[in-house]
């Protein structure tokens, strides 16, 4: 073995060590979570569980409020994504193409929702929701979720629309396309990667949102993260592990599916003020 290390050289060894530490730091908790989810009995001195099994999976999936929270979360996330596309994409197009007074200020104002402490913002919104009767309603929860993603959904598509050059739109007009046809066949498809990325973020953000939902949706609208809190506090940690895997799964699936589209470029260009 020794000759091998000598051959590799000190620099490579240090690199290798750093990489290992990094991998453990990242993958360690995830591996632990996976093992925990499939363990039925796991006592302290043992490195691995004494007994493996699906006991906690059946337990979690058998509980009605958990299953219903999963479908509720996905329903809300879908609604939030669709609605914010409807609201934000036209706005993003306007920001990218039209000249109007105070444009930069409007664009900047979308950042404000992310500038305040979330809880403070939610409480003041909750006061408003009380007055107009939106507390404990689906619409209220959806609105709270949308506030979170306004910035993503506007800034990233704005950059995507900006990257469609005017000459590209003009040449489509030139060969005979009406303005609407140009938008549908040229501008929108070319901006699609940015819009898809923003939509995925919106969807995941909504799946993950707990604070606002907790404030506005309780008691009737218990989404996955809310139920997660009670499971962690009420049941053994294995149940929590099972549930967090269920919660993580859509994120991983969506990110893998969109891997080709999610690039640092798309994200970075969304946060340029032009």
């Amino acid at each position: 073995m020794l000759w091998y290390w000598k051959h590799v050289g000190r620099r490579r060894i240090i690199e290798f060590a750093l990489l290992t530490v990094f991998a453990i730091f990242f993958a360690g908790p995830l591996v632990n979570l996976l093992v925990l989810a499939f363990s039925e009995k796991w006592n302290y001195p043992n490195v691995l569980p004494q007994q493996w099994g699906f006991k906690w999976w059946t337990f979690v999936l058998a509980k009605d409020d958990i299953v219903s929270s999963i479908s509720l979360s996905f329903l809300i996330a879908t609604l939030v994504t669709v609605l914010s596309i409807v609201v934000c994409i036209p706005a993003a197009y306007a920001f990218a193409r039209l000249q109007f007074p105070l444009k930069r200020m409007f664009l900047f104002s979308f950042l404000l929702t992310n500038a305040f402490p979330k809880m403070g913002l939610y409480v003041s919104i909750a006061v408003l929701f009380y007055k107009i009767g939106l507390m404990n309603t689906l619409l209220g929860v959806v609105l709270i979720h949308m506030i979170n993603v306004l910035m993503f959904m506007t800034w990233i598509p704005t950059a995507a629309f900006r990257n469609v050059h005017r000459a590209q739109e003009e040449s489509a007009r030139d060969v005979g396309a009406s303005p609407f046809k140009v938008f549908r066949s040229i501008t929108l498809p070319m901006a699609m990667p940015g819009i898809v990325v923003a939509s995925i973020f919106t969807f995941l953000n909504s799946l993950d949102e707990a604070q606002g939902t907790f404030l506005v949706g309780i008691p009737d609208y218990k989404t996955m993260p809310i139920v997660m809190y009670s499971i962690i506090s009420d049941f053994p940690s294995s149940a929590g592990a099972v549930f967090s895997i269920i919660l993580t799964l859509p994120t991983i699936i969506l990110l893998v599916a969109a891997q080709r589209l999610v690039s640092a470029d798309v994200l970075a260009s969304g946060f340029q003020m032009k």
Partner: protein
Amino acid sequence: MQLSVRELSKRYKTGDGVSGINIDIQKGELVTLLGPSGCGKTTVLRSIGGFLEPDSGDILIEGRSVIQLPPEKRPTSMVFQSYNLWSHMSVYENLAFGLKIRKKSKAEIRASVDEALKLVRLSGFEKKVPAELSGGQQQRVALARSLLLNPAVLLLDEPFSALDAKLRHEMREELREIQMKTGLTMVFVTHDQEEALSLSDRIIVMNHGRIEQIAQPQQIYDEPASLYVAGFIGKMNFMEGVADGAKIRLGSLALPNVKNLRGRVTAAVRPEDVQLRERTDTEGTLTGKVKQVMILGHYAEVTVELAEFGIIRAFQSKEVVQRLQPGQEVGVSITQMTGFPVDEAKAN
């Protein structure tokens, strides 16, 4: 008349723009709008294409006013400087887009695309996407897309300016060839005078939003209509002289006063119309000293410092240059010049 522009004017808030633009273009002509950046040539072109709304004036294509029509309804097609192609479509889809809008059958589209690609020598590129093409190939695809729509007027907005010099040269020749084959009417915008001179049937020289001269390339070069055109096209020496009846006197030189000018005159002299002689005592020459000799391949540019007029440049053959040394006294004579009244020079 294939294309007529009548009294077109367009002013931007910045004060830039064009006014009093009158252009008539025959069927099958290739006409270049030439001028420095900001002279308004692109404004004129974009107005013809429908991408700009002029303040006043009219544009007629094949005798029909198109001023009210949006770009998609005009019988024009434009090749832009860059970003012509749609990056999410293949070359075939790029070319077919306009034909699909026109509800052509699949077979017709396929045939037109094949033909257009053959014309720009890109057969077999149908399946590629724009990102896989070089800059020159992209511009050729853009050209093909315009060609297959068979426009009444093809508009080209500095289409080759982003390409390197050699490619630009090739593209020029190719465009000229395509124009011969198809007989299309073309309006070409460029700031490159070499491009304009080599490509055009006629050149429209523009400056500060106005037309300075419309003429054939040779005429623009030989008989510039204004001091601006004289200075803009090719190399030119400017000397000050005085009109004296039928002659214009430049020191001891006397040249014919073709335009019947009076008073002080700015004489524009092409470097190739300047003759150098070794002897200096001859009547009818100016005297000067050779400052510099620059060999430019098959000819040389000689800079001579004249006693009365300052520096003058002359193009000389290699044989003449071999006998010239910097510092040498030479006699300078001028075979041809164009005179302009001096006041005009001040106005410019």
